């Protein structure tokens, strides 16, 4: 896979569900046919999706682009069934049509020849798969810490395993991997391995922890933020997140969704 570096404007485009599976409890794995997203999306970017004509729910829903296959014109989403919109998506069969806006947001810069950590939990795992794949191909060593409440919520486990040099599993209930909190084992690992960067998604605790690591001078930290979104394109100013220190707001969709961890207020 070639590492892309030219940012394209989003498209409003139709996709078809190629395959769907519910591998992990409460999650939907969608493989979608759409050339434009498959070709142009870069790590860190997302799409807004709807699969219904109705205005209830009215907004399209944002999801990270998990994997792309430009050759076959396919891309993957991993969706946690959280409410009305995701339940609707979950009810669609293979062959159904989706309305997609994207790719949206700023790509993360893919580190070349570095050492990085991915610290993710729950649906947050979806955000970093594409980054992991791209970074590894760019000669970066990727160490993944994947956390979940229990074994069958370790979403993207296989995708991340393939895309990482090493993967650590952590569950709250000890049903798989380390029994406890990822932070317990991470600080030691960092002191030892001295990574260049750490990327986190899916947990406010992890984000704050990542901020602390950076403040201690141990590594640079980045956070994938989520926010309620209406447009995904900077028009509504709805997805604001407070800037750290200086005052004012970033827009998650337009200025993010990935931010240097200490540039934003993590409440």
């Amino acid at each position: 896979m070639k590492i892309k570096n030219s940012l394209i404007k989003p498209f409003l485009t139709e996709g078809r569900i190629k395959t769907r599976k519910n591998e992990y409890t409460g999650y939907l794995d969608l493989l979608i046919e759409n050339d434009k997203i498959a070709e142009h999306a870069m790590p860190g970017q997302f799409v807004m999706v709807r699969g219904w004509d109705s205005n209830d729910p009215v907004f399209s829903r944002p999801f990270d682009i998990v994997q792309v296959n430009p050759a076959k014109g396919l891309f993957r989403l991993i969706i946690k069934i959280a409410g009305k919109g995701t339940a609707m998506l979950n009810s669609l069969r293979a062959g159904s049509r989706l309305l997609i806006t994207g790719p949206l947001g700023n790509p993360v810069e893919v580190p070349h020849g570095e050492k990085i950590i991915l610290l993710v939990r729950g649906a947050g795992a979806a955000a970093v798969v594409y980054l992991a794949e791209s970074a590894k191909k760019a000669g970066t060593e990727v160490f993944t810490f994947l956390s979940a409440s229990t074994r069958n919520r370790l979403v993207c486990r296989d995708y991340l395993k393939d895309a990482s040099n090493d993967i650590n599993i952590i569950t709250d209930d000890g049903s798989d991997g380390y029994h406890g909190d990822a932070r317990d084992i991470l600080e030691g690992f960092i002191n030892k391995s001295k990574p260049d960067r750490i990327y986190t998604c899916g947990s406010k605790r992890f984000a704050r922890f990542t901020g602390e690591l950076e403040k201690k001078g141990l590594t640079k930290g980045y956070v994938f933020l989520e926010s309620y979104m209406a447009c995904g394109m900077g028009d509504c100013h709805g997805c604001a997140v407070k800037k750290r220190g200086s005052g004012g707001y970033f827009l998650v969709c337009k200025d993010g969704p990935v931010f240097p961890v200490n540039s934003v207020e993590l409440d």
Partner: protein
Amino acid sequence: MIMDLNVNIAGVILKNPVMPASGTYECDSIHDNIFSPDELGAVVSKTIFINSREGNTPPRICETPCGMLNSIGIPTEGVNNFIKDRLPVLSGFGVPVIISIAGNSMEDFCELAGIIENTGKADLLELNLSCPNLHHGIEWARDKKELYRVIKKVKEVTRVPVIAKLSPSVVDISEMSLIAESAGADAVALINTYKGMKIDINKRKPFLGNIAGGLSGPAIHPLAVYAVYSSFTKISIPIIGTGGIASWIDAVEMILAGATAVGIGMYNFVNPLIMREVIKGIEAYLKDNNFAEITEIIGIAHL
């Protein structure tokens, strides 16, 4: 046959009656692959203040049944930066430019009107007298005397035609439209959002950072149509019908009710192609129903 979609708002000719509602469409290049503002009847700025503003505490939006609440609070770079950075973009599309302004006092409105007029780049000035998310935002459009005075004052200091954007949170909006007209407004924009709120039942707190917000979207469409319908017979200045338009059918309803032009707000977020679809849909409707000009159908639901 080519349909004539031209409409006239206070002497300004719009090549079609479709424009964004203020604050809902940035006319940024991010839309380049989707839709170009040069297809529009007019472009409309978000509301500008003299000084910069940050906007309200998040969460700023939430979804409601067929609608949304917003408590954005009109973040703005202030008028000087607006003129420097945004106005050249807006006036680069070759379509009329509507600048929306608001202030904390009568003096603010007048000062802004003057500054905007001096740029020579505003075809129409929209007074946002009806934002429910500002400290003194909606009061202008709720108090008959204040409404009259602020419009009258602005009209005294500028020759740019003035649109008064009114609030539905009044006893009878058609009376307010009439007051706006008698104060000298050249057009009215009906309607801004309704004040509403959502409560998070898990946190047992208001969902929005600013407690309440403004409701817009399809949910309020029947209320906006009625606002236009009831004002149409009372005033002779044009109405820009805004509120819940989500399809060309909704837009045609507005025009039949009495709107000369239509504003599209939250649905830009849902379907970034909606404004083009509305323009095409109106054109097809005229054709299918044997009307040559859009002006033939304005307000004819009253007949």
